[in-house]
């Protein structure tokens, strides 16, 4: 079959052997644990076959936490290697692999699942829907993402990591210069995960367009729903480009075509263009939902309606449009010529305008508000100044002429970490602290949350602020070491110390999840923050059918105004009707398995085995085509009984459901 079995496991390096042993032990522990506690049936029924958007969202978030850990380890290893000059902790090859996987994992397997997870949990609730438009497709999206993520993650112990950077520029990423199979993982694992993301985009566009509660016009939608909608549109417009780019990369590497090669007429710049035609919109795919989260959190904890709602909407649409026409700014130095560079310089700087509008809107939302300094709000407050640093350095980089100086230095690296960490990671943390009670029925500990917040934000600034100055002094990115004479050593050391503080912050977060899971008070209200949007109108954790009766929406911040009008949450039992729900299905999980196996064989260039495995994909599609399961109905009695567990007779509410 063409697989060289003896080369399959990467050996030698003690770090890698240690990881291999740890992975085997973890898998054994999970299998033994599930068998011992007789949890296999529970796992299959409640999680692996679920089509419930809330559970799918939780699985995305859990994957995000795991991947944050993996990507974070990569980051710490890099920081350890560069802490002192001429270190030999990692060799050049190992360092290349680690910065490649760090980038890919943090963007595609950490930021994306965290945000898509929150979108899954929150958006159907915010619009008063009972699920997404295509629940089973939603499960398939998750499982394809998960399959791709796992395939990518095993690369470092099975066969070798990709090592051509997260951008995988040709000709380096081509077969001539990277003959191993490492970069096959990049091409194939990202393809599988990308298919899942594309389906998520389609799903959310239809959900938001068609399934809103009566009375919720587009301009009465909560801001997080708006940003999810626009993000979904960008996904549908940009991900097919990546699909093609990765497919062509696969053809080049596996079948000897000449799309991006140096010989026989290929064009390496074509890859750079295609990659960033997807890659720049991708930046906004992760940042826009984060903007939505901040909008919800800031409005809630300032006790005010979001300032400038209409201008917010116009700004995100403008950002989405501009995101498609700035891609060349990623390679000004690669011979595009002054006219082209000037055009992209201007479009890039233009993005600062709608982004600035949003920043001012958030500030004006807080103005004269009665701000509550909850952990979620602290993340939002820290976001503003930190993100502005990222934005302003972005405008510096946008100037094509000046970019020739900054290009490929740590200045750039510091810039995009200042955009992505405050912009995405802070938002994810804010969103998790904010929506946690809705997901699980208990809150994350606020005191631990504040330790988490301060350690993480201080650690973040100590890590990345020195990198601006290192970059200005000429330290290049992706270099595994530097000489003592360069004078870089002190700042690199500060940065390494910062990364440890950052990691401790993340550890506190993980401990907080554990602590709250064990000890937090279970009897929280359905609306612990006195919030504004529909998701807070139903129980915490949410009943599987979301709303006993779909609410009617009269204006923006619908739930807030219902409370202001003194409307109680009394449920007229005569209003309850039976509810149609989709059935669980094992098919998405099966598809993830066959996609994973097919992908694995393709990575190892075992074409016949891959073709055989691909028959499994076709079989799955045929089974789906003949599947006429139309779901089931929840009876009125069951709804009444569930609602009684959290509503009191007077229209008040208290208890935890279930």
């Amino acid at each position, binding site marked *: 079959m063409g697989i060289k079995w003896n080369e399959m496991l990467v050996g030698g390096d003690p770090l890698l052997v240690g990881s291999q042993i740890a992975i085997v032990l973890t898998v054994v522990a999970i299998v033994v644990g599930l068998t011992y506690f007789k949890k296999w049936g529970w796992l299959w029924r409640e999680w692996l076959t679920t089509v419930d958007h809330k559970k799918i969202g939780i699985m995305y978030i859990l994957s995000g936490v795991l991947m944050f850990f993996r990507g974070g380890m990569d980051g710490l290893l890099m920081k350890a290697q560069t802490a002192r000059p001429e270190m030999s902790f990692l060799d050049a090859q190992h360092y290349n692999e680690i910065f490649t996987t760090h980038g890919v994992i943090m963007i595609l397997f950490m930021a994306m699942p965290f945000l898509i997870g929150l979108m899954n949990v929150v958006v159907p609730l915010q619009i008063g829907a*009972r*699920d997404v*438009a*295509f629940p089973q497709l939603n499960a398939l999206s998750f499982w394809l993402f998960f399959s791709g993520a796992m395939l990518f993650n095993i690369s470092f112990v099975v066969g070798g990591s990709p090592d051509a950077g997260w951008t995988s520029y040709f000709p380096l990423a081509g077969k001539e210069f990277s003959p191993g199979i490492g970069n096959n993982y990049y091409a194939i694992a990202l393809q599988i995960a990308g298919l899942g993301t*594309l389906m998520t*985009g*389609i*799903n959310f*566009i*239809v959900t938001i*367009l*068609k*399934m809103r509660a009566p009375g919720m016009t587009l301009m009465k939608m909560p801001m997080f729903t708006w940003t999810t909608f626009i993000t979904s549109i960008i996904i*549908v*417009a*940009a*991900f*097919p*480009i990546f*699909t*093609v*780019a990765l*497919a*062509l990369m696969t*053809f080049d590497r596996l*079948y*000897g*075509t*000449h*799309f991006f090669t140096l*010989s*026989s*007429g*290929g*064009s390496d710049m*074509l890859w750079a263009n*295609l990659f960033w*035609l997807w890659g720049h919109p991708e930046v906004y795919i992760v940042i826009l939902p984060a903007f939505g989260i901040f909008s919800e959190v800031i409005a809630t904890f300032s006790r005010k309606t979001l300032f400038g709602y209409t201008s917010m909407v116009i700004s995100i649409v403008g950002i989405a449009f501009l995101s498609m026409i700035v891609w060349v700014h990623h390679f000004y130095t690669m011979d595009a010529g002054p006219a082209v560079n000037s055009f992209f310089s201007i479009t890039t700087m233009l993005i600062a305008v709608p982004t600035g509008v949003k920043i001012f809107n958030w500030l004006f939302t807080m103005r004269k508000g009665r701000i509550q300094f909850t952990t979620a709000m602290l993340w939002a407050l820290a976001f503003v100044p930190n993100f502005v640093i990222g934005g302003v350095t972005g405008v510096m980089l946008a100037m094509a002429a000046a970019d020739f100086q900054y290009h490929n230095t740590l200045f750039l690296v510091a810039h995009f970490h200042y955009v992505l960490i405050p912009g995405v990671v802070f938002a994810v943390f804010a969103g998790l602290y904010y929506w946690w009670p809705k997901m699980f029925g208990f809150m994350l500990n606020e005191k631990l949350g504040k330790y988490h917040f301060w350690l993480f934000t201080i650690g973040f600034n100590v890590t990345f602020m020195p990198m601006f100055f290192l970059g200005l002094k000429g330290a290049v990115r992706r270099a595994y070491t530097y000489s003592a004479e360069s004078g870089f050593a002190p700042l690199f050391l500060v940065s390494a110390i910062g990364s440890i503080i950052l990691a401790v912050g993340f550890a506190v977060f993980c401990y907080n999840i554990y602590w709250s899971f064990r000890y937090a008070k279970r009897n929280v209200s359905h609306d612990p923050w006195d919030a504004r949007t529909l998701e807070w109108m139903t129980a915490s954790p949410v009943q599987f059918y979301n709303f006993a009766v779909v609410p009617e929406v009269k204006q923006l911040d619908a739930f807030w105004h219902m409370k202001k009008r003194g409307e109680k949450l009394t449920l007229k039992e005569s209003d309850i009707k039976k509810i*149609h729900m*989709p059935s669980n299905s094992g098919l998405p999980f099966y598809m993830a398995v066959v996609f994973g196996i097919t992908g694995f064989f393709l990575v190892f260039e075992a074409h016949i085995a891959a073709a055989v495995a691909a028959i499994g994909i*076709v079989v799955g599609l*045929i089974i789906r*085509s*003949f599947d*006429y399961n*139309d*779901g089931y109905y929840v009876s009125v009695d069951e709804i009444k009984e569930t609602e009684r567990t959290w509503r009191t007779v007077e229209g008040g509410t208290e208890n935890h459901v279930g």
Partner: protein
Amino acid sequence: MSANVNHSLPLEYQTEQNRLNILGFWIFIGAEIVLFATLFAVYGVLGHRYAGGPTPSDIFKLNDVLIETLLLLTSSFTCGLAVFFMRQRNMKQLLVWFVITLLLGAGFLFMEIREFIHYVHEGATMQTSAFLSSFFVLLGTHGAHVTFGIIWAIMLIIQLLQRGLTPVTARKMFIISLYWHFLDVVWIFIFTFVYLKGMVG
């Protein structure tokens, strides 16, 4: 999601879930447009990089291509007829025209595969030059879509025979017709920007 059936609408639009599916498929076609647009852009960049290998006018056989075009365009028309008869609730005519559509599609595929084999025998393979890489992948993607469509349609014919015309089978029929027409539109672009332009340029 509810089973409320609105009889005043065409069969495929009668349930809410059907309306969601049809909108979702339109958006999927939007994604497909981006996918093919990217492949056309790649062909636009690489299509004249022959690397010493054959050029379009060396290898293209316009007669075969015209037959392919004719087959596929006719199949789009017969597919339209099939949906027309579906709306009339005429199962027999629906099946007749749908099967004819598939036969025409299969004829197209046969011609296309023959054309590819011919090129390969002339020494014009995917590995020869950037022009041929982009040519084969653009056309191959389209051909793979047609193949996939035929398999999918056979599954649907079985379901039509098993279940007759219901809102669900009608929706599936309608969606596959959208898909089929879309592939036809892509072919028109291929015919124009690959074959005609290749013969002129």
